[in-house]
């Protein structure tokens, strides 16, 4: 479904130009969940913005190709992009507070992509929005329909984001750190919601995160990025169980876990001296 080959992205407003993404490869089948993992500045977000046609002017794609459903994304005009975004490819971001419009009601934002891409009547749109809101687990959709983003909690806002990204039934959803700002219990809910949506609607998800724990729980394949380059990729279990690259090993060992305690290990070391 999606085929990215040799993609390189360069920032040309600095001298010498800064290569943000270098020779990126990815192919995705429909209905698949693939993870991109790496620390900040590793180029994961740049790659996803390129996929949405949302790169800033200073960032230029210098080489490579991106094919989506047999169409070349790189040759698309602004207008063609607009027809694609929200309909075929949609995106959810880390911080739902900054990416929802604070002066529009939840209902209006849920319907946005229907308004843009379909000729549905207002009533029908509302029905669909309310239906989607209950699907993503928002209670009392009628009441929420008239609320504004600031009246919602972080988890609810993220549900609204997911709902409005899915309402147009896209083939591909890019999820950029969708649970990073959330508590563990809410995080678990959002992840199972994404999995459910993936199964029910067959939406492929490109899941971007720096947290390998999250990647492990949701993705079937993973791409590890470091300084703009792919250092390792493969099935999640293989990569995480027997990492080949030093960087992947470092990422894995830095995950906070309960196998040992930094604090108590240090104390023991000091006391034994």
């Amino acid at each position, binding site marked *: 479904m999606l085929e990215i080959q040799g993609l390189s992205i360069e920032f040309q407003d600095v001298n010498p130009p800064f290569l943000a993404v270098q020779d990126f490869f990815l192919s995705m089948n429909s209905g698949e969940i693939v993870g991109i993992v790496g*620390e*900040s500045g590793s180029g994961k977000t740049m790659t996803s913005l390129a996929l949405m046609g949302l790169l800033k002017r200073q960032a230029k794609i210098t080489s490579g190709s991106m094919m989506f459903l047999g169409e070349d994304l790189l040759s698309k005009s602004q207008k063609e992009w607009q027809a694609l975004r929200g309909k075929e490819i949609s995106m959810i971001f880390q911080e739902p507070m900054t990416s929802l419009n604070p002066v529009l009601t939840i209902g209006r934002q849920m319907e946005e992509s229907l308004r843009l891409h379909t000729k549905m009547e207002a009533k029908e749109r509302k029905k669909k929005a309310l239906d989607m809101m209950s699907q993503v687990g928002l209670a009392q959709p009628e009441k929420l329909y008239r609320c504004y983003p600031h009246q919602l*909690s*972080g988890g609810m806002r993220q549900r609204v984001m997911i709902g409005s990204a899915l309402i147009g039934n896209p083939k591909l959803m890019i999820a950029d750190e969708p649970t990073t700002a959330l*508590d*563990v*219990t*809410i*995080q*678990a809910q959002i992840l199972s919601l994404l999995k459910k949506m993936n199964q029910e609607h067959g939406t492929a998800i490109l899941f971007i995160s*720096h*947290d*390998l*724990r*999250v990647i*492990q*729980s949701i993705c079937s394949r993973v791409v590890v990025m470091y300084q703009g380059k792919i250092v390792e990729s493969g099935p999640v279990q293989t990569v995480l169980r027997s990492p080949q690259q030093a960087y992947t090993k*470092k*990422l894995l060992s*830095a*995950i*906070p*876990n*309960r196998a*040992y*305690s*930094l*604090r*108590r290990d*240090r104390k023991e070391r*000091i006391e034994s001296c």
Partner: protein
Amino acid sequence: MLKEEPVLEVQHLCAGYGNRRKYRQVLFDVDFCLNRGEILGLVGESGCGKSTLSKTILGFVPAKSGRVVHHTSRPQMIFQDPFSSLNPGKKVGWILEEPLRMQKEKMSASERKERVEAFAERVGLDRELLARYPRDLSGGQRQRVSIAISLIQGSSLILADEPVSALDVTIQRQIMELMLKLQEELNLSYLFISHDLDVIYQMCDRVMVMEKGRIVESGPAEQIFREPQHPYTKILLESSF
């Protein structure tokens, strides 16, 4: 830690927001004691009152009943997002010097400069970064700056509110190691607030679990994680990976 010497006592604390007509109580009968050299973890979901507790300890939120007893001077705070807590219009060196200019005991400019450089080194900040603005720093470096700010007046009690939650795992590890190193060198006490149970496990001696403004369970970290008693603690532990 031979003798348990309290640096902070919170006694039957109730607090909340609003006025007499419309009051929303957030904390209910919170009672605990933090000892010198101890790292006490506070975990719970957002909205459970973790941040309100630290604000009440610092006096930003008035207590409705109960009290907070400080046995040290100048408790300090480290925040989750160092970008919004550092003045964007000032250079890092100036920001670090500010607490020294504010304090009662006057220091000469050269003494201040010396102390700023000493603490920058202590938290692992290159000296050249002192002449930069916060926006030029990475998230990890900015968190190092806020740690230095919290320590520069000689505080020994630090309230750390989600200090590593906004950072990548590799940077997170560096900051956690730094906080532990500083704790040992300066015999600091931390109230370490986080929603990340694994971070809490790695950092803390004792843990308190908070639900809807109440401490529902507390005890040594190993014990809480191995044998959680309260149903809420069990839910928390199950929903993390």
